[in-house]
């Protein structure tokens, strides 16, 4: 028996979520009284994972795997799971984690819980908490199969250092025929994405026009944050659709979410419920968003935001 964690890297570098799933896997293996094995593919520096509790690291290096392919990767995970007699498989909830997990579940005849937010509350029966109703509620899900697949929701557990000595083992995996060819990848480089950001600054229809986004971008850049918006803002073409958050847009699970000129409609809140701390700036003291916020300012964004930028710059220079 063991816990198998898939720690994803991109262009050889681990994503932050790789450290989170490793930290999480370590704790799960302790609860189950078993060991953890971490699988990496084409990572430049697999041994980094020792720092997060990974004793046994298995690495696959293959030039045909520079671009993620869900079918091939799910099959490799299956090969390693069988070799290591893994009974719990853990992946992240990024685009690739969510792509590969259901395929692993079928390959291993395993029950699967996605968007998991906590450690199992019980290991026998195996019960684990996951998001449901578009983050308006949680479900405690019992997985009854021998093998279990779990995808961990981003930023829900955290990264914990727990240095161990261990080994890195190369595994020569069989590569299956996938029927899928990657033609091109377009990715914004250098800009913080909503998915990765610790802080998100988001603007709504209260900002009146796309031309007023300069101060939103400046606030984001002072904070090292990603920018986001409400749905009408992207529908109006003020901002790209990739920035729209909410039930029908992107989910945000940042440490800090700053909502400016957003009313707080239920469909918007569904996308930001998983953010830890929420700040709301709105002219209307009755705006529903205040009920879901931690800190609120009733005021005009065009006055408050420039002041906030100024004060943050002062703060940053004093704390640099």
């Amino acid at each position, binding site marked *: 028996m063991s816990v198998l964690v898939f720690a994803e890297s991109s262009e050889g570098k681990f994503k932050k979520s790789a450290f989170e799933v490793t930290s999480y896997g370590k704790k799960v293996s302790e609860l189950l009284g078993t060991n953890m094995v971490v699988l990496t593919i084409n990572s430049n520096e697999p041994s980094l994972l020792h720092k997060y509790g990974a004793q046994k690291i298995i690495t696959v290096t293959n030039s045909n795997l520079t671009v993620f392919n869900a079918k091939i990767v799910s099959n490799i995970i299956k090969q390693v799971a069988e070799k290591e007699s893994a009974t719990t498989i853990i992946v992240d909830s990024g685009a690739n984690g969510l792509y590969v997990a*259901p395929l692993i579940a079928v390959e291993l005849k395993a029950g699967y819980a996605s968007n998991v937010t906590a450690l199992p509350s019980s290991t026998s029966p195996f019960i684990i908490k996951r998001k449901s109703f578009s983050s308006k509620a949680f479900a405690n899900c019992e997985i009854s199969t021998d093998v279990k697949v779990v995808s961990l929701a981003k930023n829900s557990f955290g990264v914990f250092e727990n240095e161990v000595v261990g080994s890195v083992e190369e595994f020569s995996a069989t590569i299956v025929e996938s029927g899928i060819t990657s033609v091109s990848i377009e990715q914004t480089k250098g800009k913080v994405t909503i998915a990765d950001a610790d802080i998100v600054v988001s603007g709504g229809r209260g900002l009146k026009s796309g031309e007023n986004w300069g101060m939103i971008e400046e606030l984001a850049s002072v904070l090292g944050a990603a920018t986001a918006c409400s749905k009408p803002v992207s529908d109006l073409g003020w901002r790209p659709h990739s920035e729209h958050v909410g039930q029908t847009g992107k989910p945000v699970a940042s440490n800090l979410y700053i909502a400016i000129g957003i009313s707080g409609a239920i469909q918007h809140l569904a996308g930001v419920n998983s953010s830890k701390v929420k700040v709301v700036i709105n002219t209307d003291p009755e705006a529903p968003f205040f009920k879901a916020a931690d800190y609120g*300012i009733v005021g005009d964004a065009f006055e408050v935001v420039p002041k906030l930028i100024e004060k943050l710059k002062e703060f940053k220079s004093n704390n640099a």
Partner: protein
Amino acid sequence: MISMKILVCISHVPDTTSKINFTENNTKFDNNGVQFVINPYDEFALTRAMWFKEKQGATVTVINVGNASTEPTLRKALAIGADDAIRVNCEATDGFAVAKEIASVIKNGGYNLVLAGKESSDYNGAMVPGMVASLVDFSFINACIGLEIEGEKATASREIDGGKEVISTSLPLVIAGQKGLVEEKDLRIPNMRGIMMARQKPLNVVEPVNSENATAIASFEKLETKSSCKMIDASNVEELVHLLHTEAKVI
């Protein structure tokens, strides 16, 4: 040339504005007063299917795995333009079991393109389409934001963290789709004629293959309600900076 035989998977979910409550000691969703609709992501899949039908020729079947209460949702899909509907008669409580039911219908029906949504807005499993693809051994694209098919060749794009990937593949194929497959303004809604015609269209109820459930919901929990929001005066913005640093510890 092969013809497209499309199966669109329709999940029957509470409307996005619904209040979420639970009954029976937090083990059941309280559907009292809740309006059920076609899962928003599935609407994109269904409209894309209608375009294939109109522009390239295809038959479009919609399927739901669920009890009789989902039939109005299937009728709505028929009113939007699907040719026929299948309801697999069982309670859908586990994604793996649902996927096995759909896989069995695909094998018997000879479908070569399966369009689904990327997740159901109620249980948010994000698993049925991938599982279906794996069970029937079709190619699979998750979080799909664009799909073109010519003959047997398919070009699709999928959303990745911070961008998109363009993929080439071929039929038979399963898609888990979302906005981008078509745009929101293009989503089809039923018109009067469609509603009248839907009444005559076949809605076939089939019995399940009854696979065992791999998961079950032990209980639900509602979100904890926030302790009240701390209000800061608009003239005192530095107080916010201070609190975010010392109290919330997020900057």
